[in-house]
C-alpha cells in the first residue's frame, strides 16, 4: 500500500536518482569487494594451477599442485590434526558454554560478574593467551600439572609430548568460549517463560524441560554458533604458531600452519593457493553437511505453525 502510493508520488526520475545514489554510496564496499575479495579469489584459483614464487611470473602446471598435495604426507597430517582439533574444541566448547550459560540464566547472585569473568578471556589477543598457556602447560611448575598433582596425577609434558600437544591446544581453546556463553545466555533469555510453565503443568521434570523446551528453542542459535566455531577451528593459526610451531613431530601441524609455511617461508604460492582452495572446499562441504543435518536437530518455530 505505502509502496504503491510512494511510487505514485515519486516520478521515475526520482527513483532513478535514488538508484544512482544507492550505487554511489555502496561504491566503497563494491570496490573493496571486487579488488580485495572477488579478484583475489579468482586469482588464487588461477594460481592454484601454476607454479609461482612471487618473483618470476606464474607458470601453468595444470593439476600438478593438487596431485602433489594429495601425495603429501604433511597435507594429510594437517587435515588429520585440524579435524581432530575441530572435533575436540567445537563440541567441548559448545557443551562448556551451554552448561555455564544455563547456570548463569538462573537467578544466581552476581550474574553480571560471572558473565564478565567468563567473557574476558575471549576478548584477549590469541598471542597473549597462547603465551599464558605456554606457561600453564609447563611440565614442572605449570599450573595445569600442579592442579593435577593435587589429585595425585602426574601430568604429561603437554606441549612437547606428541600425544598430548593437540589435547593441550584443545583444552586451551575451551578457555575462550566466553563469547558463546554470552550468545547462549541471550538465547536462553529469549525462550518464553510460558513454555516452561506449560511443560511444568504437563509434569515435566528438569531433564525433560531441558530436553523438550530449552534444547529445541535454543537449537537455531546452537546451530549457527557450531557452524561459526567449525569454520574458526579449521582456520586456526595463531595458537599453533606460538605454542608448538606444528610440533612435536607434526602432532599439531594445523592446516593454516602448513599453508603459511608453503606460502611465506618456501614461497610456493601456487601450491599454497591450491591448499587454500582445498580448505575452502572442505569448509563448504562441512558447512553443508551441518546444514543438511540441521533438519534433524534444529527446531524452527515457523515449522510448528
Amino acid at each position, binding site marked *: 500500500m505505502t509502496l504503491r502510493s510512494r511510487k505514485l508520488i515519486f516520478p521515475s526520475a526520482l527513483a532513478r536518482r535514488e538508484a544512482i*545514489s544507492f550505487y554511489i*554510496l555502496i561504491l566503497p564496499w563494491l570496490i573493496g569487494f571486487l579488488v580485495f575479495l572477488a579478484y*583475489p579469489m579468482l586469482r588464487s584459483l588461477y594460481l592454484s594451477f601454476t607454479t609461482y614464487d612471487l618473483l618470476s611470473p606464474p607458470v601453468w602446471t595444470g593439476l600438478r599442485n593438487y596431485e602433489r598435495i594429495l601425495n603429501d604426507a604433511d597435507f594429510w597430517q594437517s587435515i588429520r590434526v585440524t579435524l581432530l582439533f575441530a572435533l575436540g574444541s567445537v563440541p567441548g566448547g559448545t557443551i562448556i558454554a551451554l552448561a555455564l550459560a544455563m547456570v548463569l540464566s538462573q537467578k544466581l547472585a552476581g550474574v553480571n560478574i560471572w558473565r564478565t569473568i567468563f567473557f574476558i578471556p575471549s576478548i584477549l589477543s590469541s598471542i597473549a593467551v597462547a603465551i599464558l598457556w605456554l606457561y600453564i602447560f609447563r611440565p614442572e*611448575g605449570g599450573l595445569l600439572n600442579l592442579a593435577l598433582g593435587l589429585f595425585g596425577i602426574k601430568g604429561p609434558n603437554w606441549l612437547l609430548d606428541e600425544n598430548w600437544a593437540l589435547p593441550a591446544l584443545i583444552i586451551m581453546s575451551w578457555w575462550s568460549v566466553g563469547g558463546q556463553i554470552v550468545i547462549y545466555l541471550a538465547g536462553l533469555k529469549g525462550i518464553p517463560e510460558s513454555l516452561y510453565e506449560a511443560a511444568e503443568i504437563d509434569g515435566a521434570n528438569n531433564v525433560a524441560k531441558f530436553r523438550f523446551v530449552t534444547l529445541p528453542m535454543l537449537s537455531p542459535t546452537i546451530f549457527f554458533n557450531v557452524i561459526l566455531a567449525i569454520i574458526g577451528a579449521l582456520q586456526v593459526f595463531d595458537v599453533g604458531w606460538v605454542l608448538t610451531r606444528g610440533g612435536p613431530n607434526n602432532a599439531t601441524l594445523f592446516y593454516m600452519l602448513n599453508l603459511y609455511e608453503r606460502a611465506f617461508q618456501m614461497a610456493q604460492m601456487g601450491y599454497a593457493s591450491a591448499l587454500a582452495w582445498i580448505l575452502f572446499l572442505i569448509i563448504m562441504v562441512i558447512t553443508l553437511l551441518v546444514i543438511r543435518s540441521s533438519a534433524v536437530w534444529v527446531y524452527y518455530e515457523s515449522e510448528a505453525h
Partner: protein
Amino acid sequence: MDTAVRPTTLRSRAATNWQTVRTSKTWQRGLRHASSYIVLALGAAFMLFPMLWMVSASLKPSWQIFTDPPIWIPQHWETVRVGNTNRMLSLWHVDVEGETKTVMEIGVRRYTTVLDATGLQNILTVPTAELGDAVTTTIGEVTLNVRPWTTNGETRQVVALARGENDTLIVVDVNDLQAAALRMPLDQVNGGDRAALEIGGIEFRGRAVETADGVRQIIPIGPESQLSVVSAPDVAAAALLVTVENLSDAGFASIGQTELPQFNLAGQDGAHVILVQESWQPIINEADFDAAAIIAQREQLTDEQPVVVNGVAMQGATYTDGTPTQVAILIRGTQFSVVIPVDAADSLRLAQLGGLTSARGDQLNRIPFRVQDGFSAGDETVSVALVGEPREMALMVPTAAISDAFDVNPADLSRAMYPELRFDGFREALQTKVGDTYFPTFFRNSFILVLLNTIGHVLSCVVVAYAFARLRAPGKNFFFLLLLGTMMLPYPVTLVPVYEIFRDMGIVNTLWPLFLRSFFGNAFLIFMLRQFFTSIPRELEDAARIDGANIAQIIVKVIVPLSKPAIATVIIFTFWWTWNSFLEPFIFLSSPDLFPVSVGLNFFNDQYGTIFYDRLISASVMSMLPMILLFFFAQRYFIEGIQMTGIKG
C-alpha cells in the same frame, strides 16, 4: 521481655523452615542450585585461575613463577648487599632451639658417614645376590645406605662396608652398627692418614683421623651429605670482591661450631673466607660502546699494560691518532682492536656471567662481540656489550668478621620473604630491546592502526549501510546477499593474492596493508549498522528532506546522531579486531619498529620466552590491558555486538 520472646520466635521460624525444606519441590530446587554452583565453581576455576595466575606472575620475580606449590601472593625475598658490590645474597630463616634466626649462607660443608673401628662387631660376609637395593636412611644424626638381606626366609637390614672376594659383600647389621657410626666432615676424613685396619680377619682401608678426643681409627662408608654453613647477615658488609689469583690456601678456620676453608689475600692481613666464587664479566653500556668505541689498528696501540678502569682490571694501551690517548682494550682482533678512551668508559663495570647467558652476537666493522639485551641494573634495563675477558672472582670476608657460624641441613632453611608486589617486570619489559626497538613502539603502532581502521570503518560502513537500509535500487537484494555471503568467506583463499596486490603497490612492510581495506567497509559492521538504521523511523529523515537536505546531510545530521550506540559498537569491534590481529601484520611486516603489539609480543616471546619469564608475562598483561579497559568501559556494546553475531534464526 526480650529474652522471653526470642526463643519462641526462633523455634517457630525453624519449624517453618523445616517444613519448607521437606516439600520435594524445594529439595529439587536446592539440588538444582547446588549442582548449578558446582558447575559454576568448576567453570570459574577453569576460567579464573589462569587469569589470577597471570596477574600474580606479572608481579613476581622470575624464580617465583614456577614454584611447587605455587606462590600466589608475590613475595619479596630479602637479600643483603655484599660489600660495596651490586651483588645481593639471599637471606634465609632457620629455627635454632625454637628461635627463628635470619641468616645468610657463607659456605657448605660436606660430611660422610664413618665407622669407628673400635666399636665394630659381628661382621658378616654375604653373597651379593642375597642383598637388595640400597636405601638411604637417616638414623639419628647419621645417614646410612641400608640394604635388605634375605637369607633362609628371614630379612635383615644391613649396611655394606666393603667388597669381599668371590662376589660377596662385607656387611654389618644396622643394629650392630649404630654405636660405631658417626658423621664426620669430609675434609677432616680426607685429612687423616691412610691406615689399613684389620677387624675380625678382614682388612679395611681406613683412616687415622685426629679429633678432639685424640686419634681415631675410622672406616669411611658414606653416603656423603652436604650441610649449609650459615652466619648472621651482617658479615656481608665486610666483603671484598677479588680475583682468585690473589688467593692462597690458609687451611681451615674453626668458626663457631663449624670449620671453613680460609685463604690469605695478597696485600691484606689476616685470613679470609669465601662467600661466593663465580665468573664475572666486564660489561659496558651499548650506548657508550656505540658512542665512544674506536677501532684501532695494531700499530696505533703502544705501551700495552694492565689498567684499572672504575675498579675493573682491563688491558690498557696508548692509542695514537694525533694526540696519544690512554685507552682500555675492549675487544681484541688480529689486525684491529676495539678500544675505548679510559675517561669515556664511565659505564664499564663487572657483572656476573650468569646474568649474561642470552647474549646475542653483534659486529663492529666485522669484529665480533656479544651484546646482552635487557640487562637489569638497579632501576635501569639496558643493552650491554660484553668486553674483555671474564674472570673468576670471589667475594671474601675476613675470618675475624664472622662471629658465629653453624651448620644447617639445607632442607631446614626457608627463604626470608614478605609479601610485596613487584612492578619491575613491567618496567624491565618496556626497557628491554626487542629487535631494534622497544615495547612502547608496538603500542604506538597498534594505536595508530586502531585509529586509522576506526576512521576507515566508520566512514565507509555508515555510508554503505545507509544505502542498504534506505535506498531502493534494482539489484539491491543481490548485492545484499553478496554482502552477507562474504561474511563467512574463509580468509586463507584470498591471502596469497592480497599479499601480491600489496607487494605490487609497494606497501609491504608498511602499515598501509593493515588499514587500507577498512576504508572499503566490512561486511559484518555494514550488516549490523544496516539493521540499526532500519529501526530508525523514516519520518525523522522526511522532515529533513523537506527542508532540502541531501543524502550526505541526512546521514550526518539525522542518522549519525541517532546511531551513537551502533557506531560505538563499530569502533569497539574495530579496536578489538585490530588490537588482536596477528597473521596479517605477521605476514605483511618485517621491520620490528612497525610491529603492532600482537606481533611484537610474539617476537618478545621468541627472544626471551625462556629467559625473562617475568617480563614476558608482564608484557602479555600490558598487551591485554587496553582490551580489558575497553571492555569495562563499553561492556554493553561488546555484549550486544557479540549477541548480534551469534543469534540468527
